[in-house]
């Protein structure tokens, strides 16, 4: 019962919802990236590693140039480069996308520490680097509204970018030629090829878009609120994005809500740290809840499919 009180107390604070959006941002950006890749028919496991590399690059570039903007561009560019490497192996050399993704993640987890040590002489975190953060933004008018202002205004610039990108990606899939080509290639590569779409090119573009979006997520992690890089700081967010992406089933708006589930859980976890629940249970909660939601989603899809098949069979007998 006490726990319920604690949860209720957390839910009644506007700051809770602010933290929810904050935690959801990197997952949301990566979910969008995973979605674009997945709709083109490539399962991009490399997101985790891409994000990790981008967060290191963002910190290093911003520390050396003393410009947050250039640091951000560096992070995004690193996402672009990694996705190109992945695309080269998957599309050109016909590697298994999942295994290549695991290779890139292995490379990222060791390689980032290797580079961090080269630059700072430390393996844990980039505390000795004077890196910069990207700014937060107050929205005029909205910031003055009580409660809603606290929740929606004053966020990190990339949080707003992510929300805008939800609309952009949604629009892209619904109304643009590129979006339709990506969907066509993902659903039926042979049919797409036969109407003159270059499957390889479209898949390449999709992978690059996913790399760039994930690069932004990396920049958010290390140039957002924390302002430093620490080894393994992505903590599975790239994998979570694979699940939220699957829940979204190609719809960017649903993807946003799925990411908010994760944001909600990790925000709640933060608020419950002072309660009596053991810390480890709080830490594992976001992962567990995403598994549950994802599995329920899969079960629902499967059930609908069965129903449809059953109905079809009924229909067939009617005709006969």
């Amino acid at each position: 019962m006490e726990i319920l009180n604690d949860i209720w107390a957390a839910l009644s604070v506007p700051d809770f919802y602010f933290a929810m959006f904050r935690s959801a941002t990197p997952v949301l950006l990566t979910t969008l990236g995973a979605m674009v890749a997945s709709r083109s028919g490539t399962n991009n496991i490399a997101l985790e590693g891409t994000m990790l590399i981008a967060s290191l690059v963002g910190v290093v570039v911003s520390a050396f140039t003393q410009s947050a903007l250039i640091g951000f561009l560096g992070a995004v560019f690193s996402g672009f480069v990694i996705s190109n490497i992945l695309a080269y192996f998957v599309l050109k050399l016909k590697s298994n996308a999942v295994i290549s993704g695991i290779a890139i993640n292995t490379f990222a987890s060791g390689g980032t520490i290797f580079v961090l040590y080269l630059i700072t002489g430390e393996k844990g975190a980039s505390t000795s680097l004077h890196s910069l953060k990207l700014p937060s933004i107050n929205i005029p008018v909205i910031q003055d509204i009580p409660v809603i202002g606290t929740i929606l205004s004053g966020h990190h610039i990339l949080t707003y970018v992510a929300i805008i990108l939800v609309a952009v990606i949604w629009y892209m899939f619904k109304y643009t030629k590129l979006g339709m080509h990506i969907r066509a290639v993902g659903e039926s590569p042979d049919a797409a090829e036969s109407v003159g779409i270059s499957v390889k090119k479209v898949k390449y573009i999709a992978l690059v878009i996913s790399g760039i979006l994930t690069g932004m997520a990396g920049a958010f992690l290390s140039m957002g609120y924390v302002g430093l890089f620490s080894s393994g700081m992505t903590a599975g967010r790239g994998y979570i994005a694979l699940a939220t992406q699957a829940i979204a089933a190609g719809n960017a708006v649903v993807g946003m809500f799925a990411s908010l589930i994760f944001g909600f859980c990790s925000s709640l976890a933060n608020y419950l740290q002072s309660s009596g629940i053991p810390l480890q249970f709080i830490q594992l909660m976001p992962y567990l809840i995403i598994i549950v939601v994802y599995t329920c989603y899969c079960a629902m899809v499967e059930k609908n499919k069965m129903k449809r098949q059953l109905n079809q069979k009924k229909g067939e007998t009617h005709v006969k």
Partner: protein
Amino acid sequence: MNKKFTAVRLTCAFLIAFIITVAIIFSISEEPMTAISNLFLGPLQSKRYFFQVFASAVPIIFTGLALGLVFKSGNFSMIADASLYTGGVVAAAIAILLPMPMIIHPIFIFIAAAIIGGVIGSIPAILKVKFKANELVTSLMFNYVFFYIGIYIVNTFFVDRQAGTFASLKYSPTATLGNMISGTPLHFGFVIAVAVVIFLYILLYKTKFGYEIRISGSNPEFAKYSGINTSKVIILTQVIAGAVAGLGGAVEQLGMYQRFNWQDSPSYAWDGVIIAILSGNNPKFVPFAAFFLAYIRVGADLMSRRSDVQNELVSIVQAVLILFITAERFMAGWKQRQEAKKALKEEA
């Protein structure tokens, strides 16, 4: 032709990895020769280091076997990570809390760790069979869940509050595995690893169930129509893989440690991926692939102790190897030219 092609491709992949490694060392190190000689020859310098290679190969033989088995059945679960970590926790718990006589103690631990590893391994498989949830996605997240549960168990029931860092109480001496060769870290876990290799080889290549696994992996449609219960194959392979990984975690703990101090999940499951790939998912070749990776690891540790190059270099080498070995079209041009040449010769 195909065998020769595979050999040439493997050689080229190793060459590329070698060149990249040397290039990185030369570009960042002030003492590149020291670094290189330690990396490649370090393990041969003393008996201790050489047997250290065998000892380091033990946990990755287990994970290599586990992942190879899952890959062979055409699935893609990374749950070996959770099974191995939890296997280690189970080993620690029983080694500390349950007093038992010699020999029986480790055997009891191995059975318990394998069972729990198998149970954990079954979860993503069951979710896949029952709800069509992708086993890769769920296993990746279960790894975090079980990691935190493990930390919780150690922290609550047998943590050593006197130790400065995260560590459990000391294991009972009846539980730990003896050294096979004194003065070296090689322990009897190596024998267990080899026994599991033989067991899995027989299972995969000499039994009906092994045949079903291989067919399900290479041709799932055919498997279904020929009456193979694919759901059973999916679940059972992942249970066995989880049990192997759980056993590996226990063996590693009892062989190499006096107390449980895995503050982070060790990357053995991810190493298992490259070992499975190098061995072509065949248990027979797993020890050799594991020996190779362990050799480089021990060399890299020596390198980072004795020069200014850090041992994380290994993960870069690992990634390059995985990428090139699994690239289907890598060197395809070469193959085509060879075939064309051969054809021309035959015509002439």
